[in-house]
């Protein structure tokens, strides 16, 4: 085996990207801003790193259509800022946006934030894509209109693909109007009581955009985000306080509360690994209690009691992480490993689901030599044997 000499290529157009994929033999690792470089499976050493941050900027934005086409390497925060000038937004809010994450990176890692309760993740907002396959094929799917059922929704298969299967070059997104007002209600609450409280919030007519539990310096509490018109959002938030208690946070306090929440999600605590999972909401408390016992104590805990998704930090120990994956799988959920100490050999995913065989077949059809992102979805897509990386 020769000594690997990794070269980084930074294309600035889709044509460049295609040329880079075609011109470079061997394996390719995709890179964006690097905010999730250690998520999912540990990449095998690659011959080339394809830096997608050069493929940046809005391609077309027609505000009246509430859609935008964007190069995948665009920093998400920058995109939101430009859209904000038109009082529009992409209605997702993953924690690592603040660290400079790119649109393509958020998409490839299937990341989402508190607003997933109402808006889902990027998979729910992407209406079209241009992708480049390992053999240089450039393919589009979807289009520029929100309502469109022509052809396969191919874009979806790259959501959560972690840089395998194909390179996302451009995405077309549906936009939402920026709400006039955003109000946060904080209700003090132990984690053990968060499920019941969150259900009472959900059963009220306020239609919260996000409901998150967070244990922080400010105490353990449920944060409820209410978005809408100037008068409406405020009135709804007050009705909520009447119904379930707590208080409306002043704008600065609300900003600080959500910032602290995001900081927990993207934290890199020493000797710990960040474990993200989703289970049916009614199982969330039980699974968290089990993980608490298994791991000797969870830290950086944020939970979304109404969606069943939580992010926690556990000891960076292979057995502990494997046990955590098993516990979530036993509850019928899904889990993946996020931030972890450099060099830690930890299992990224839980037991392979029955659909893993199908996933391998799809991977074989799109990237038969596993040139892209090799190792990212191991062990579900194992690295090919007998091929040097």
């Amino acid at each position, binding site marked *: 085996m020769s000594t690997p000499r990794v070269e980084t290529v930074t294309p600035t157009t889709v044509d460049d990207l295609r040329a880079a994929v075609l011109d470079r033999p061997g394996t390719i690792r995709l890179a964006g801003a690097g905010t999730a470089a250690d998520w999912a499976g540990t990449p095998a050493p690659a011959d080339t790193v394809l830096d997608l941050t050069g493929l940046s900027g809005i391609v077309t934005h*027609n505000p*009246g*259509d*509430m*859609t935008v086409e964007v190069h995948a390497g665009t920093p998400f925060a920058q995109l939101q800022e430009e859209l904000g000038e038109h009082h529009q937004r992409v209605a997702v809010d993953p924690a690592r946006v603040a660290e400079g994450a790119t649109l393509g990176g958020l998409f490839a890692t*299937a990341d*989402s934030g508190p607003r997933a309760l109402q808006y*889902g993740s990027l*998979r*729910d907002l992407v209406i079209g894509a241009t992708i480049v*396959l390992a053999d240089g094929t*450039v*393919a*589009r*799917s979807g*289009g*520029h*209109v*929100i*309502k*469109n*059922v*022509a*052809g*396969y*929704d191919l874009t*979806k*298969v790259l*959501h*959560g*693909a*972690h840089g395998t299967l194909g390179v996302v070059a451009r995405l077309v997104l549906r936009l*939402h*109007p920026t*709400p006039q007002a955003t109000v946060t209600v904080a209700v003090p609450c132990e984690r053990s009581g968060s499920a019941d409280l969150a259900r009472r919030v*959900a059963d009220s*007519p306020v*239609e919260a955009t996000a409901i998150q539990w967070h244990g922080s310096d400010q105490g353990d509490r449920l944060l409820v985000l209410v978005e*809408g018109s100037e*008068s*409406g959002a405020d009135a*709804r938030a007050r009705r909520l306080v009447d119904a379930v208690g707590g208080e409306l946070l002043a704008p600065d306090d609300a900003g600080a509360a959500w910032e602290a929440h995001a900081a927990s999600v993207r934290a890199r605590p020493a000797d710990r690994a960040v474990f993200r*999972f*989703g289970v*049916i*909401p*009614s199982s969330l408390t039980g699974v968290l209690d089990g993980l608490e016992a298994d791991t000797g104590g969870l830290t950086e805990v944020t939970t979304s009691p109404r969606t*069943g*998704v939580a992010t926690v930090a556990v000891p960076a120990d292979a057995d502990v992480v494997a046990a955590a994956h098993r516990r979530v799988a036993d509850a019928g959920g*899904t889990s993946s490993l996020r931030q972890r100490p450099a060099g830690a050999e930890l299992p990224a*995913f839980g037991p392979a689901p*029955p*659909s893993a*065989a*199908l*996933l391998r077949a*799809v991977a074989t*059809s*799109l990237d038969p030599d596993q040139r892209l992102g090799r190792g990212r*979805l191991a062990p579900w897509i194992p690295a090919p044997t007998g091929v040097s990386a």
Partner: protein
Amino acid sequence: MPERTMEAPHGGTGSDAPSAATPPAAVGPELARDFRDVLPADLVITDEVGRRSYECDGLTGFRQVPALVVLPRDAEEVAACVRICARHGVPFVARGAGTGLSGGAMPVADGVVISVQKLRRILEIDVENRRAVLEPGVYNLEISKAAQPHGLYYAPDPSSQQVCTIGGNVAENSGGAHCLKYGFTTNHVLEMEVVLADGSVVTLGGPTGEQAGPDLRGLFIGSEGTLGICTRVTVRLLQTPETVRTVLADFPSIEAAGDTVGDIVDAAIIPAAVEMMDSLSMEASEAATGAGLTVDAPAALIIELDGPADEVEAEFEHLTAICERHGATRLHVPTEAEERQKVWKGRKAAFAAVGRISPDYIVQDGVVPRTRLAEVLTRIAEMGRDAGLRVANVFHAGDGNLHPLVLYSESAGEHDAAEKLSTDIAELCVELGGSLSGEHGIGTDKACSMPVMFSSDDLGVMHRVRLAFDPDSRCNPGKLFPTPRLCGERPGKYQPHPLEEAGVIERL
């Protein structure tokens, strides 16, 4: 490969179809015997009359009698049927209620129709977690009916919701009048059990939106039965909105109505629904329903807001002010639920009602970017004039989804011109940056137009994915992808379902 058979309105199958009296040679008696080993004999349909009742879906111009029809009763039986098809190497077409409008459930001559109409159990309404677990043959509206006592409902509401199945909704990624705000089937399905072409059973998706690995669930939804059959679907349920407000607004021109929609969007209001009708469609609908539409108004909007009372009241005031600013000639605000339903009936019965003003017509489905609505309508009017045909327009104005109705007379020999105009309109939508279909699907009907919207590379990659799921292309072959054999003939006229004519169901 499917045979396409063009039928005269009341005629028999065309000459290129295999004899319907006996199953084609490729499907021998062993196949039926194998099915009878896993199903009671009366659930394996081999007689001609029985098979003929499955010859088409809601697009009645495409007909093909299948070799066999099977009616499994649960997921295990579906998987067993698929395995038998795999063993014999025969294609199969999954079928829900057969209400699709693109020939997506049209049978294959030497293949099997696997109907899920007996898988009709609602397995669970989980109030705490706000989800429902369903067998694929459950009617869309039954989900909301079952959830309603708990203050919950299922959001996607395709216009045929009384008679279309959730399994069909998954295949087509169905939307509905309210999808502008609430999204499509793909946004509401969490998890599915799917039988693949080889008979293996896999679960796609999971109990939450949280994904570990690529989103195969999203790929499967909207694949029009070409990747497998779903046998169990878990959907999200939403809380019934506190308030619903509806306005029917007449406008002096289509442009004024279109500008109103633009200003509503600019005002950061996302209505639950925004529907537009032109005078021709209102004339037809009013004659059929007496819903209170103003037949001499050039255009009307039906706009609905829903949500928390505090928001809706303020937004509704803003909304009516926008309508007035654009010269609305009448604002009708129904106050009672019954009155609101009457307005909706006027909208929903429009397709079938067009039969009152034209002997024959074709329903088209295309999408343009919302800001190009006025442009596309002008072009459609010009194209109609050139073709010497009238076109009525009914559409979901909020998302640019058009349903032009091409009126013609079969007896006057206008059929071919009408079909050409209809296809040209769908392809015009693509030219204007839109899509061939917003909700009816590609199926058999539009497979030949796919190269207008997608390059051969685009389609090639889709096909590679198809082969990963179904290496022998036995799941619903001949649909969605253009094939030389398929592309040479044109679809027939639209024939409304009897329930549709009565205004009970509608195709928006």
